[in-house]
């Protein structure tokens, strides 16, 4: 297991930069360039390097889709949000006429986590194999319904690849594409499932759309065990803690604060904030990241916990 690549990191609803957003970034860069040398490419790169990520890049707007790089020929993916479309295009580009196999693990069946399937190019290619794993009883029916008329023009009969559905029993470890995969029930409307992937002494946890009831110690213990010594925890940090336990209680999401606490208790090495609030612009996500890093710093009791915020296209090597 080499690492992960994020293809979609936004929560609930895909979003896009507007012309106004792009203009604001350009203006910010031009202001930063005032009075500085501009003659060489390195001069320009130096100016860009001095700016925050939100000024020169974007966290992106695709909904949840994360590729686990197994180091092997088969693909492993978490969730089929709109980010599945660019992932499918990239995978197809490296196909070279050889049939491909995709193992896709679904956290749950809400639209933002399944909307990419109708646009997943590899599913249209005869010879390919697409195996969809999950623990929801109605998984296949939900995916078929998404493409039934009048919601979509073509149903599953359009797919040329072989589609398979595998029901996973939570807590039971299964070998898939060289990885030991274990799922766990999470608190979310209609239930969601987190996944722990292990290989060669490395562990990645994918835990999105998961609310953490703070009063229940056994709940925290269960998650601490699931996150235990993970090299990377991809965590739903959609809301502030105040929102998550007041006006947005029971909405099924968590906060950066709880992410830091669980990872610290579990001895995890890297917390990656994920499922970003769609109303947040890049600067707001930058600010949340900065605050989360500061929180980790002032509450640290043992080894440091690295904190990042996922963006579309981001790669993390283990």
């Amino acid at each position, binding site marked *: 297991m080499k690492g992960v690549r994020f293809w979609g990191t936004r929560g609930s609803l895909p979003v896009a930069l507007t012309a106004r957003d792009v203009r604001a970034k350009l203006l910010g860069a031009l202001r930063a360039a005032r009075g500085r040398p501009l003659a060489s490419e390195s001069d320009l790169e130096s100016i860009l390097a001095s700016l925050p990520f939100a000024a020169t890049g974007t966290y992106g707007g695709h909904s949840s889709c994360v590729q686990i790089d197994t180091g092997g020929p088969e693909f492993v993916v978490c969730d089929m949000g709109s980010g599945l479309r660019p992932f499918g295009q990239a995978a197809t580009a490296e196909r070279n006429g050889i049939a491909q196999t995709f193992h896709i693990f679904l956290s749950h069946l809400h639209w933002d986590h399944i909307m990419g399937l109708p646009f997943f190019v590899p599913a249209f290619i005869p010879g390919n194999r697409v195996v969809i794993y999950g623990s929801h009883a109605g998984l296949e029916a939900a995916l078929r319904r998404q493409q039934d008329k009048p919601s979509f023009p073509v149903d599953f009969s359009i797919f040329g690849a072989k589609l398979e559905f595998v029901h996973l029993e939570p807590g039971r470890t299964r070998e898939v594409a060289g990885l030991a995969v274990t799922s766990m029930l999470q608190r979310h409307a209609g239930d969601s499932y987190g996944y722990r992937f292990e290989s060669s002494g490395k562990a990645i946890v994918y835990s999105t759309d998961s609310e953490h009831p703070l009063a229940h110690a056994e709940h925290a213990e269960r998650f601490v065990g699931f996150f235990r010594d993970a090299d990377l925890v991809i965590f739903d940090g959609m809301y502030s*803690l105040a929102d998550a*336990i007041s006006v947005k209680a029971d909405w099924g999401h968590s906060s950066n*604060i709880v992410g830091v606490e669980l990872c610290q208790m579990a001895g995890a090495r890297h917390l990656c904030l994920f499922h970003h609030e769609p109303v947040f612009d890049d600067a707001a996500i930058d600010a949340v990241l900065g605050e989360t890093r500061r929180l980790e710093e002032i509450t640290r009791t043992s080894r440091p916990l690295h904190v990042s915020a996922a963006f579309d296209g981001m790669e993390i090597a283990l």
Partner: protein
Amino acid sequence: MHLQIATRHVADAVIAAPAGRIDHRSAAEFETALTPLVAAAAAAKSALVLDFSAVEYISSVGLRVLMIAAKKMREREAPLLVAAPQSVVAEIFAISRFDRILTVTATLDEAMALCSPAALAQHRGAGSSEAS
């Protein structure tokens, strides 16, 4: 770790001063100690001031206890104030956005001034009655 809450009445307000770490281990104890104070203050519509100057850390579970206390006080239109947090705790309030849903003051004097002129005057004088 045993979490202590010392209390004292100051004019028409009550000051409660927890000490130590309010974390996953001690939050239940904090809730147990705070609940009757909140109930009494809410029933009397008195201000309850939490003097946080001796609180070293508060976790999400502890913040949840504050959220519940604030809600109960609000239902009876009785003010709840958190005063004089240490810098780490003040940062946690800001990062969690609890500073937007709780009234947090930098000093105990500021909190007492928000309670009433009598509370501020008595706090600044020597006449507060101690209890624990």
